[in-house]
């Protein structure tokens, strides 16, 4: 199936007075319609930046310095601002981490929904209101018609996130970029929001790019997952395979570091050291200083994504000529 979104060797750089820092390096992946792709990584890995670059919200001094982003066959990273603005919301929706700041505290939910709907769709006021009500109902908010007149502070955290999702879906986008949508929510509410996202994705045939650091959310919600490290994708594949049999040493370490809810209690697997800062990414494979299985080639040559079981990993261990 033709991917709805295709990111090809995307590079993002930041120009500071210390020189140019590469925050994203040759990031490539695709999302098919109706698929949920998870982008997982720790802080500083570049996952939020990827989302921001795709949706055209990179803040200077950051800029796209290489690669292409193709949406529905059309290249969007070179679009002028006005065209990108129209694309945003209509074709690509986005939801961010903090539901508190995503909504304008001075306007009612109804006003914000109607404004968004009428910006992108040629509907009359009453049609827009009707659509707003149906959107709220779709996201599981009961008594939607009455709640349109309420302000954000009258909603709880989980409800607010549902409203944010409704806003993102207002114009019927085909791609949704969700950046840490459940991180600020409590566990019980998290489960509800994840279930909602999955259901919406199924019902509308939407593609979702879910950015998070929480592996549990990935396991629940995603079909495929890409693991990011130091601005590059180190492993990408079906979620089951990446979680149960990770191929890249970093992914292996990551899985082992997560405390489990079952089985005997053992010492958590520890990856010594820390993710390198932007200006200190080593030559060759970015992970090699912390990798227990690094060998000579890892230090000098940077690996591309190569087949490793059912997924692909950027690791020389999976190359034909690797030492066993």
């Amino acid at each position, binding site marked *: 199936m033709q991917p709805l979104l295709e990111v090809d060797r995307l590079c993002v750089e930041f120009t500071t007075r210390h020189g140019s820092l590469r925050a994203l390096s040759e990031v490539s992946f695709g999302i098919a319609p109706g698929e949920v792709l998870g982008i997982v990584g*720790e*802080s500083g890995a570049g996952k939020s930046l990827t989302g921001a670059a795709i949706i055209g919200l990179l803040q200077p001094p950051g800029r796209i310095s290489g690669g292409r982003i193709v949406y529905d066959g059309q290249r969007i990273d070179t679009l002028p601002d006005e065209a990108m603005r129209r694309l945003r919301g209509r074709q690509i929706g986005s939801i961010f981490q903090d539901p508190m700041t995503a909504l304008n505290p001075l306007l009612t939910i109804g006003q914000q929904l109607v404004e968004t709907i009428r910006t992108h769709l040629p509907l009359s006021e009453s049609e827009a209101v009707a659509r707003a009500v149906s959107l709220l109902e779709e996201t599981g908010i009961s008594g939607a018609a009455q709640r349109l007149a309420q302000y954000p502070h009258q909603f*709880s*955290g*989980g*409800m607010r996130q549902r409203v944010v999702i409704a806003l993102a879906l207002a114009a019927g986008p085909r791609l949704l970029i969700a950046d840490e949508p459940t991180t600020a929510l*409590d*566990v*019980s*509410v*998290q*489960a*509800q929001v*994840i*279930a909602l996202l999955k259901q919406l994705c199924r019902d509308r045939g939407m593609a979702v790019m879910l950015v998070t*650091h*929480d*592996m*549990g*959310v990935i*396991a*629940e919600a995603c079909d495929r997952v890409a693991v990011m490290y130091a601005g590059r994708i180190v492993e990408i594949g079906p*979620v*089951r395979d990446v*979680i*149960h049999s990770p191929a890249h040493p970093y992914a292996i*370490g*990551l899985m*082992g*570091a*997560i*405390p*489990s*809810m*079952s089985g005997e*209690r053992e*010492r*958590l*697997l*520890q*990856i*010594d050291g*820390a*993710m390198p800062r932007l200006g200190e990414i080593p030559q060759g494979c970015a992970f090699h200083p912390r990798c227990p299985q690094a060998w000579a080639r890892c230090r000098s040559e940077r690996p591309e994504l190569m087949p490793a079981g059912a997924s692909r990993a950027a690791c020389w261990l999976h190359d034909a000529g690797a030492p066993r």
Partner: protein
Amino acid sequence: MTPLMASPLVEVRELSKTFDVSAPWLARVIERRAPQFVHAVDGVSFAIQRGQTLGLVGESGCGKSTVARLLVGLQTPTSGEVRLDGIDMTQAFASGQAGTLRRRLQMIFQDPYASLNPRWTVADIVAEPLVEHGLLSGRAALRERVAELLAAVGLSASDAAKLPHQFSGGQRQRISIARALASNPEFLVCDEPTSALDVSVQAQVLNLMQEIQQRHGLTYLFISHNLAVVRHVADQVGVMVLGRIVELADRRTLFSRPAHPYTRMLLDSIPDVAMSGRVRQPVQGDLPNPLQPPIGCSFHPRCPHANERCRVERPALQAIGGVQVACHAAEEGRLP
């Protein structure tokens, strides 16, 4: 449980803390509003044995952070008793003679970026308890001890001259731990120490904390909203809702046979990384509002087993089947 147990290091009995969140006096008089109170902690009781870890879990607003603050003297309890090794802590803190007591307990905070003074060097930060309690004097002695502490948490002596902003989140948390260990405390209150850290860094810090606990025989109160983490570190687990403990059990029992409906719901909500195919039952409804807590059991609006009694009568924490549970359904044997 051995019949003859040593007395616990930390004992908390009917601890309560109520905050007055009423509108200002003038507004209340004009609008005829009643004063409003939040029972952040409402009759909490538990005991921690020496060398053990009690994990307190719950969602936001359940009062677990307030319990932590009450235990270290950052807040004064409205009522109830807190004892460290038999000493009444509330009295000690109030009387201002708490010096020796404060040396024996310490706290580790959640935010690694705000828990270190950005203008102080690491050496000064770590040495502060030593200086404050007069445990060591002389630059050489302090320097040596700081180097010792930094080594114990996996940092190097050369880090002592640096400033906090030169370190990552995980390293800052290690510095916090080094500071906490400076006065050789017996009891450590850890308020979500790894919640702000990445998973791999969390693993490092948790492993470190367990190592230190074993080496020094420390007692921990570990607060977290992450059940998997609590399962990993705690010996005993307490589940809190709206200021009350609804279940208190040892780790194995709580996670394999949870008694309280809320605990079951909580465990059920956790995303299943192992993807065992378990069907999750997301709970309906929202978190209760601490300003308007439900009458009776605080969980009854969301509980599938609630009956009339639950709506009216608040259940007490009782020993049922080897664990402590506050639930009418459990008491009446109605739970499957």
